């Protein structure tokens, strides 16, 4: 088995034009191992980038390698090792889930027996074990999303591309899908690229993010970098928040208020001061949290 390159997708100055429109304007990215989130506004170039990674379109400039291969020249080899779950929910109506997943696994060069077995396993894994013989036409959006995921992983690809995997799912289903994706990425050793509009969800499961704007990467970081350092302290009490705010302000802390919630500027001795002030006032302490930088802060900051 070949050594896995440390960077899964590597892009240098990638350019793509559609007539007069420049969709990608010299994009640089190193999408490394693990789960990476691909973010960006509509029309920023994410879909174009994915189509180039899959070798479905040719680029007009720059270099791109996917697991060491160039999708423009070695498209077939690149695609046989990738699992892809597109954004749309169109799937062949009559096929049963198991037939569809098996057929796609076979189309990804798994021998028949192995394809049958792994399609079965993949559908159980995503929670569709009992429904796997039902025609896809009878399935809800939530089930279709899971069928797409099963089809993407059944042939044990090295890289999985997921486009809006939680689209159309209700809150409980979203949590389950995210947990599933996290599991697939961390336990099963597949590299995953998730394209999504949901910052909170990307923050929950990704190891790193790449933010695309106007055809370029404007920010790329690991989640650890994003969440660097506390930038303040959030305090929520169940009453008398103004009094608490005054007490703390009097002690020299910078305090801002939003209803029952106070936000203090970062300071080492803030913790004890808050604890003591709350105890003195005899109010209930609902929440005490360091306020870190969030992905949203980073994202909105870059696309301002």
């Amino acid at each position: 088995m070949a050594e896995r390159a440390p960077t899964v997708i590597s892009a240098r100055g990638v350019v793509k034009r559609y007539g007069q429109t420049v969709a990608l304007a010299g994009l640089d990215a190193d999408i490394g191992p693990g789960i990476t989130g691909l973010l960006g506004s509509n029309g920023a170039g994410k879909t174009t980038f994915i189509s180039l990674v899959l070798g479905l379109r040719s680029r007009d400039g720059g270099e791109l390698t996917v697991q060491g291969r160039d999708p423009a020249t070695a498209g077939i080899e690149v695609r046989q090792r990738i699992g892809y779950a597109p954004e749309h929910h169109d799937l062949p109506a009559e096929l049963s889930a198991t037939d569809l997943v098996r057929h796609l696994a076979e189309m990804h060069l798994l021998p028949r027996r192995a394809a049958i077995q792994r399609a079965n396993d993949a559908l159980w894994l995503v929670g569709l074990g009992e429904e796997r013989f039902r025609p896809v036409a009878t399935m809800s959006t939530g089930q279709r999303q899971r069928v797409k995921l099963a089809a993407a992983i059944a042939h044990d690809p090295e890289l999985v591309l997921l486009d809006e995997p939680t689209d159309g799912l209700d809150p409980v289903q979203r949590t389950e899908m995210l947990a599933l994706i996290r599991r697939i990425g961390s336990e099963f050793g597949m590299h995953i690229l998730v394209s999504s509009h949901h910052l909170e969800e990307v923050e929950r499961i990704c190891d790193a993010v790449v933010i695309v704007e106007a055809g370029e990467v404007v920010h790329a970081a690991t989640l650890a970098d994003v969440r660097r350092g506390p930038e303040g302290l959030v305090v929520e009490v169940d009453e008398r928040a103004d009094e608490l705010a005054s007490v703390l302000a009097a002690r020299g802390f910078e305090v801002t208020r939003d209803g029952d919630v106070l936000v203090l500027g970062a300071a080492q001795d803030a913790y004890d001061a808050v604890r003591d002030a709350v105890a003195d006032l005899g109010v209930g302490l609902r929440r005490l949290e360091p306020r870190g930088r969030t992905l949203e802060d980073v994202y909105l900051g870059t696309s301002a």
Partner: protein
Amino acid sequence: MTREPRVIADGVSKWFGPLVAVADVSFDVGPGVTALLGPNGAGKSTMFRMLCGLARPSKGTVRVLGRDPRTDTDVARHIGLVPQQEGVFEPLTAREFVALSARLQGLADPVRAAAAALEQVDLDPSDSRRLPTYSKGMRQRVKVAQALVHDPGVLILDEPLTGLDPRQRVDMVLLLRRLGAEGRCVIVSSHVLGEVERLGSQVLVMSQGRLAAAGDFRELRALMDDRPLRIRVRTDRPRVLAGALLEAGAAVGVRLDGEDVLEVDTSDARALARTLAPVSRDRGARLFEVHPLDADLEGVFRYLVER
């Protein structure tokens, strides 16, 4: 608006043959933003259709601004609907499209109303580009402008954030909050609970065709008293604090997790909140983090729909 806009459902049920889509739902929603939540298949879309007068309840009544939206065509002038499906967009400019809606509503000066509505959603009324060239986020905002042009007291939006990128989502949430703060009755359905929390705290939760909960979701959590609340505490003296909380009767269970984390189960969240700071101070334990698990909207939601 002389009267406060309200949407009232009273014992509403809807069935399609043997399929019960909505079962005995009653609520009273006033000004501000109220989120309608529920798993897929819970009856939310059917409920929306009845609120707009597009479907007739099999039983019970729906009253918008005191009138039946299905039979009283006049009240339609006070309701703005933003449906989920992508509309078929004619090759008109945004202003022409919204003005068309204004004309259909019988407004006196449709073009000016259209311009005002477009400005409300932060679009340029003098933009001469045609709608099919607009991005999805802009089209979504045009749909909202169209629903706003006749200055309705009631706005009903079905998944208005679908397909929007993160910046567009933030902008739309702010817009909806503003509309609610203006005194309109805004009912929104959405699956993304993090955003719903930012819209406001009023929720209606449907599950299996029934109304599972209504009200401020934080208060709702407090009502779920058959489930103890779990709180995560980060402190430099977890064992000492654990013992002290148990002793004080503020906790029914404690779990140590790592060097500095304590998970405390309590059946009386208020008492625990009151006890935490004083007890920590007495025992010389520093508090770095106090975080209720499952008390956010997602926790409330999961509890409600899994009952």
